[in-house]
């Protein structure tokens, strides 16, 4: 039996492509990560990091791309204007539909006015329990330690982050439950759609959906009194500054960053600052196709 999330994501596809997606053998559907549709080309599915054409499906027409966006937005593209500016729409179930389109200028804002060129449906899979092996190692005598999750893109940082938040919020895999707050700028952690988180992020978790994560983090600390604040992808200097400010307020942090490992961060010159904020680092790597989670103490000279 195919998994529910795969079926849910396939439900966004146009009928002909959906039929081809549903005809994939079960073993392949379990490892499917994305559906990719490009106008004039045959649709593909991302399996274990490699794109394969969907057997039996013809070339994608522009009308089929429109269909995907219509279904993903629930025939209400006006409700997804903010995320659309960032180039994606969150479908029911938390599946993220990335868009490439010919953009037309309108005043100072750019908006989609011309044809869609390609869409990418990222199958949102919750892997419950993925943080179970990690969480006990992230608590010290004084409770949870601020943690940085490090990995290259697509390695499962957000999946681990989400499960960590859920575990800490529900008190699973740790000594007690914590009040958590999430600054979900890219709407990938909670995937709020029309006010409802599409993922379970725990019983004691508050979310600011969209908006600049640095500002959201400060608002959350001021207004929601969290014990742990989480955010995805530290990319800009202001993100590090907001994280440092949060750490100074006594709030523990969880954040992710794109890097191959601690060595790469050190080469970039970012490690010294991050080391001051985060007490632990979890590095995700792939070995023989399986994910490996290594926990380091950032003060440790081996880190």
């Amino acid at each position: 039996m195919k998994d529910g999330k795969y079926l849910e994501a396939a439900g966004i596809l146009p009928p002909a492509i959906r039929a081809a997606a549903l005809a994939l053998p079960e073993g392949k559907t379990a490892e499917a990560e994305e559906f990719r549709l490009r106008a004039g080309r045959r649709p593909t599915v991302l399996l274990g990091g490699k794109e394969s054409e969907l057997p039996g499906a013809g070339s994608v027409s522009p009308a089929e791309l429109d269909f995907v966006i219509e279904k993903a937005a629930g025939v209400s593209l006006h409700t997804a204007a903010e995320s659309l500016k960032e180039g994606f729409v969150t479908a029911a179930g938390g599946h993220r539909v990335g868009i490439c389109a010919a953009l037309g200028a309108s005043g100072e804002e750019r908006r989609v006015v011309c044809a869609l060129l390609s869409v990418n449906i990222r199958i949102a899979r919750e892997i419950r329990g993925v943080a179970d092996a990690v969480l006990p190692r992230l608590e010290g005598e004084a409770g949870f330690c601020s943690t940085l999750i490090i990995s290259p893109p697509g390695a499962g940082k957000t999946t681990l982050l989400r499960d960590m938040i859920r575990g800490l919020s529900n008190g699973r895999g740790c000594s007690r439950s914590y009040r958590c707050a999430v600054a979900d700028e890219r709407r990938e952690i909670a995937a709020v759609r029309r006010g409802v988180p599409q993922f379970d992020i725990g019983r004691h978790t508050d979310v600011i959906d969209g908006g600049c994560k640095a500002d959201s983090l400060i608002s959350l600390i001021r207004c929601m009194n969290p014990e742990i604040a989480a955010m995805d992808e530290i990319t800009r200097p202001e993100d590090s500054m907001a994280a440092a400010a949060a750490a100074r307020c006594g709030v523990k942090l969880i954040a992710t960053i794109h890097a191959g490992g601690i060595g790469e961060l050190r080469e970039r010159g970012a490690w010294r600052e991050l080391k001051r904020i985060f007490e632990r680092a979890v590095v995700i790597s792939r070995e023989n196709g399986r994910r490996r989670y290594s926990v380091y103490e950032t003060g440790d000279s081996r880190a």
Partner: protein
Amino acid sequence: MLKDLGLLSVSLAAAYTAWRCAAGQRERRTVLSALLSDISLLKLEICERLLPLPEALEKLSKEKVPCLRAFFSACAKEIRTCENVPFSEIWSLHARKELSEKLGAEELEAAAELGRFLGRYEAGQQREELEKAERRFEGFLRREQTQGAARGRLKAAVSLCAGAVAVILML
């Protein structure tokens, strides 16, 4: 006796036809006016309140005019259940099914076309299209109020005259 009954039947038929003509015109005006209000409401709900289209259609399915109620109810139901057809086709299909007897060809075409824009663009672009539709339907309603009323009166008068001529001939 039979002749009297015949005269009465012809008189009643003529009067009924005249009344139907007038009522038909009134009904067309009512449908056009209600549809114009519904477009304005859609604009408010979609462009100002950013309400998802399925919920906006749910609101409109409480419309008092029966044909519009049937139209919006069918759209509201199928927008949630239909997995294989774009919404524009659902809208167009039900517009033609439920409104073809109440609207003229041009008005029906304008109503059916509206589905091509709903829910598929950002609020600003939908507002532009809905405002265009509002202006078109305002024009249709004005035309109906002037030409349609005159046409209705003419039809009613012709029916009554035809009835009167038949009665005179039968006397």
